[in-house]
């Protein structure tokens, strides 16, 4: 596959999703980048912003299987990964594995923070290993595979906030913002009229193969050593105890835990995907600076002082970027 083909495909999928979703174009773009980078996305926003619709539209545009799991407190891990059921076939009774909803190309884990940690952790193996293990038997998930989890920043009563280890497995954390007045007008036009827009299928029948090729292409994108070094220094700077990280104590005082190496990986891969989506075969500093927020905002854990002073992770990242200079 050539970079031009990647860019064309990317733009077509993006355009199809944008037919359904009004506004939040950067979110759509980054969801696609995460998808072609092989990552999973945590979508956060108040109810009614089109999180579920976004995921549905994406799966439709990609032409891939889609499953939705509504996370509730009584949801069990077997409800997600599947379970062994006793079957009676030809007089022989045997256990047969019944696949759960995780066996799909695109999985929507809706309101993931409402399930118990036991159920949440069931998704971990699937997200990281692309496989599930039931009764000691591993079952490989189909590729491509992406989990798009949503969570509501309000109504936190009766929720189980995702542990840091699980958060770290999400490639990006994207924030959906309420639509601007013009966008809201367009939303009303599209959803309350006779004709409602639907995303058309972009990829051909063997879309999975094509997606895998596109994912391989992303990894071939060139990145200069000074830019890699810049990423390293940025991630190192978020680690509060990092000495000579180039970040002032005023910034470090809010950080409890800095980004893990997965943060750096997400930045590089995301920047590569962004470069390819722009039709370039190399990563620039601008790519890194566009990707750093969704890649690090859920990986930096702030302390109580930051919470007391209403300091967000985005604010901390902005400060880190100001203080860490390019080479």
């Amino acid at each position, binding site marked *: 596959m050539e*970079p031009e083909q990647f860019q064309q495909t990317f733009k077509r999928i993006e355009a199809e999703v944008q037919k359904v979703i009004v506004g939040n174009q950067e979110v759509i773009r980054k969801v696609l980048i995460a998808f072609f980078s092989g990552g999973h996305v945590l979508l956060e926003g108040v109810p009614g912003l089109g999180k579920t619709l976004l995921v549905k539209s994406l799966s439709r545009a990609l032409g891939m299987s889609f499953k939705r799991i509504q996370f509730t407190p009584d949801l069990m891990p077997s409800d997600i990964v599947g379970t062994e059921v006793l079957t009676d076939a030809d007089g022989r009774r045997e256990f047969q594995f019944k696949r759960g909803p995780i066996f799909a190309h695109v999985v929507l884990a809706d309101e993931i923070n409402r399930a118990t940690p036991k159920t949440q952790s069931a998704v971990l193996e699937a997200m990281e290993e692309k496989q599930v293990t039931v009764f000691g038997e591993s079952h490989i998930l189909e590729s491509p595979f992406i989990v798009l989890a949503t969570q509501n920043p309000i109504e936190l009563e009766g929720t189980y906030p995702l542990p840091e280890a699980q958060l770290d497995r999400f490639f990006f954390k994207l924030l959906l913002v309420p639509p601007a007045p013009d966008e809201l007008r367009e939303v009303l036009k599209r959803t309350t009229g006779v004709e409602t827009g639907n995303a058309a299928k972009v990829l051909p029948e063997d879309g999975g193969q094509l997606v895998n090729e596109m994912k391989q292409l992303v990894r071939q994108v*060139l990145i*200069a050593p000074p*830019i890699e070094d810049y990423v390293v220094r940025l991630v190192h700077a978020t680690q509060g105890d990092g000495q000579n990280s180039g970040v002032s104590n005023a910034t470090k005082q809010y950080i409890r835990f800095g980004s893990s190496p997965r943060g750096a990986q997400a930045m590089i891969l995301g920047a590569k995907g962004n470069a390819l989506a722009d039709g370039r*075969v*190399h990563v620039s500093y601008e790519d890194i600076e566009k990707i750093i927020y969704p890649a690090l905002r859920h990986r930096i854990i702030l302390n109580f002082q930051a919470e007391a002073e209403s300091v967000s992770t985005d604010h901390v990242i902005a400060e880190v970027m100001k203080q860490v200079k390019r080479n």
Partner: protein
Amino acid sequence: MSSSNHRPDGARPEFLVTHLAARLRNYVLWDSLLIFSPPVLAAVFVAISCYRAAWISPLAFLLVAVGLIGVGVLAVILRYRPLVPSVPAAAQLIDGQAESEDRFLTLATLATPTHPANFVARLRQESSRFAERIQFGRDFPYRFKNSFYRSLAISLAAALLFHFLIPVAESVIRPVSVQQQLRLIAAKMAQQRSLKPLAQELQALAAKLDDPKATPEEKQATAEEIEKKIEEQKKKEEQEENRDLLSQAANSLKGTEQQQSSSGDQQKKDQNKGGGGIQSNLPQEGKGEGKQSDGGGSNSKGEQSAQMSNDTKQGKSAQGSPKEKGDEKNQHAQGDAKGEQRDPNQPGKEQTNEKVGKNQGASKEGAGKNQSPEEPPQGAPPAERFYKAGEGKEGIKGAGYVTVQLPEDVVADTKAEGRATKEGKAGTRARPQLPVSNAPLPAHLPNSPTEKQQMPIEYRGIIR
């Protein structure tokens, strides 16, 4: 520092980056050289000036010059090395100028064998298109830094300051001797045909001045002789330049004469040591003047001193005239009486008391004859109400005195006369036993007006 617009057209974009890096290295080198050259040159100029003024030897000059250049080179290297632009920095500059989104940076820093060839080829192709936007002469011209201008201005100012201060410093550190002046003028005069004989004579005089065997009289005589010749030549000379030279020579010769006369005086003084003189408690204005004053010979200062000694003598005689019969005698008598009163247990007490009574009576009479009712009583310290501004019990602040040291025979006569005066009650004129005058002198200027002179209180009556 070349500002050519040369760009390797058609060459690989990586070469563009390395070319710019080399160019920037040159810029940094030029910057460093331009910043440090002015101070080094100024310092070398100072060293040359010192060498020309013969303040330092040729070897010292050579060492200083080499050292300065070495320090300059070291400073250039120390400044240059950390500022040498790297290839990534140069690539980023090109990226910024061509708006190529880090293409040159990526291309210049990638280890190409480990990356997909098609991507690298595509990147190179894209970079080549962006490279066309770059013109070194236009986009990366060399500009003089402000630090260079500052360095130049400061160094220039320092060099000029030193240049103008050298003559002053030279005259302070090592004044030119009369002989050297004469030789310099003689060298200038020797270039004029008409002045050549005089130049030779001046050279001869300079040699004579250096000769320790020649007596000061001889030197002075020669100087006076040449001075006359110069004056004659000056009258004959038509060219202004030559006249100036002759004037300079005449001035130098005057200096020579003064030098010789002072040395002559010094010799005389040495010969006449112990024959008298004047010691003054006034501050001396200069070494040469002090010597002249000591000699008391031919110069004006000596005359002034002599005049002062005459005045002092006159003061002595005035002191003796109206009061010496009453006051001084009474003072002596009082002193004796007081001396006797110190030991009242001594025998002959009654006689002493009588004597005291007589003396006191006599002194009262004497005082009554000469003193006006407003005057303070003589022989006793005046009451405080009679003090003027600046006066006190200890005398007048800043009052000056001279001590006259008379020749021994005069001193002997004075002593003899003093004894006679003491012995004979009706002595004619009392002379002080000590050759010391307490006649007042102004603090610094002997010729200052009389009304400004500070006068001891006991002489106030005399002046009135």
